[in-house]
């Protein structure tokens, strides 16, 4: 067994374990953290496949940004686990049918000649081969239209998300920062000039 195979089996074991824990662990925050571990080990497996650009982007986007926001939400929620588990026996038959179908499909592919002989691994590239450059060339030449359409769909989703959640709040204490900066002394401070009064103890002494 080469070192690369050892890496593959190690990260696959971690990935399967983490994925199993995501659905079985009781605490939603822990299950989100196991999902992070699953993403990370998937990225490690991709690195062994020389797909370092995809692997790093997976870590950057999913682990670094998406899962942080997801954890943010999950931590704030007060999730009642009893309610979440209520329908378990009812949905179990449907779930197991779907699972069996998936297992059957994978098994069919595996028996129908999907072996390392029929699909040999592509030759390893040299150290100076730039994975990201090849990917960029493909995206901006062959697949330029699908790529741009995907970008537009994402943009629409961003605009829609903002439009759905934006509302004017009358109780907001928001202050326009430029007005804060523009403020000058006369708006905040008033100097009152007044005559000095005689000392109080002299007055008292005078009356007595």
């Amino acid at each position, binding site marked *: 067994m080469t*070192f690369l195979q050892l890496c593959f089996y190690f990260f696959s074991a971690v990935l399967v374990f983490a994925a199993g824990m995501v659905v079985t662990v009781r605490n939603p*925050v*822990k299950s989100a*953290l196991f999902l*992070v571990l699953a993403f990370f080990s998937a990225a490690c497996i991709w690195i062994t496949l020389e797909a*370092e*650009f995809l692997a*790093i*982007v997976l*870590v*950057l986007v999913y*682990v*670094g*940004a998406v899962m*942080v*926001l997801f*954890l*943010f939400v999950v*931590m*704030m929620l007060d999730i009642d686990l009893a309610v979440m588990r209520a329908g378990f026996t009812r949905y179990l038959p449907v779930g197991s049918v779907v699972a069996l179908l998936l297992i059957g499909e994978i098994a069919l592919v595996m028996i129908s000649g999907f072996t390392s002989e029929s699909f040999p691994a592509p030759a390893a590239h040299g150290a100076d*081969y*730039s*994975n*990201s450059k090849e990917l960029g060339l493909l995206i901006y030449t062959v697949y330029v239209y699908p790529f741009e359409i995907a970008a537009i769909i994402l943009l629409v989703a961003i605009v829609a998300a903002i439009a759905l959640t934006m509302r004017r709040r009358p109780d907001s204490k*928001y202050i326009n*920062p430029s007005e804060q900066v523009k403020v000058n002394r006369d708006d905040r401070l008033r100097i009152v000039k007044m005559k000095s009064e005689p000392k109080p103890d002299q007055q008292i002494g005078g009356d007595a």
Partner: protein
Amino acid sequence: MIRDAVFYMTSWLPESLQILVWVMLKIVFILVPLILSVAYFTLAERKVIGYMQLRVGPNRVGPKGLFQPFADVGKLLMKEVLIPSKSNKYLFLIAPILSLAPAFAAWAVMPFSDQLVLADIDASLLYVLALTSMGVYGVIVAGWASNSKYAFLGAMRSAAQIVAYEIAMGFALVGVLMAAGSLNLREIVLAQSGSGIASWYMWPLFPLFIVYFISGVAETNRAPFDVAEGESEIVAGFHVEYSGMGFALFFLAEYANMILIAALTVLMFLGGWLPIIETAPFTWIPGVMWFGLKTSAVAFFFLWFRATFPRYRYDQIMRLGWKILIPVTLVWIFVIGIAKFYTPFGGFFS
């Protein structure tokens, strides 16, 4: 030469293990100076801020207080590690490691000079960005596992802040890689060679340089963006429940991250290991020295900021990140795109 010596001494091992020993040795040669500089960076911070506030700073342990970091480490090592009774024990203990490991792992691709780099990988810029974005898990997990209100508030603040500033940081890096035409840190530095300080990317990419550094300060949760700690509001934020070595690891991670951001700023905008002027007296100084000098100069700004600026309010942080820094980077990426191909003088950054 050292490589041959190591391979000769370990010739009784199989070759793959020999390479492992050699790589481990290189890691030690990177990490030991790094940990030492982190230790002395803490002392430098106390001294620098002391002088800025007309104090002397620590001056009791050793000559001029030079052994203070070791005294601090000794104290923290001997303190008891308290685990709050209703906390999540495993996550509580993993969190400091999660916060320190990415800060150290990012140094694997750092080119200290043209030859001195542990792993000269093709996408090293992305690798560094991915690892720095993982540091937030230490903060979030610590805040959640402590089962404390203050710690949780600190973690939530940190999560929102880091996600916001990471976008600005990423866009600033897009500008750098457009200009250099490479994702490799070594090639990015080499693209800045030519006529000394004039060809560093800090000039053509000046707005990105500023945005990157501000985002870097925010990513490391340093003043004036230190709402995650916010002593006056939430005591110590995410690490309020940590004592002894747990606290020390968070402390180490914060300072290691500061040095990392300073080093990355130097590599991407200040010409890395290249001398200020590429003529005789300056080229005699080895590249590693230049790299260290520039990194120290940039790291000094972190301390200067802390002594100068009051803490931002939370909504001000969000406004700065989303409404100012990100639009600035977007505009400048467009400018670079045009400058690279269509200018009266031909393309820049060739």
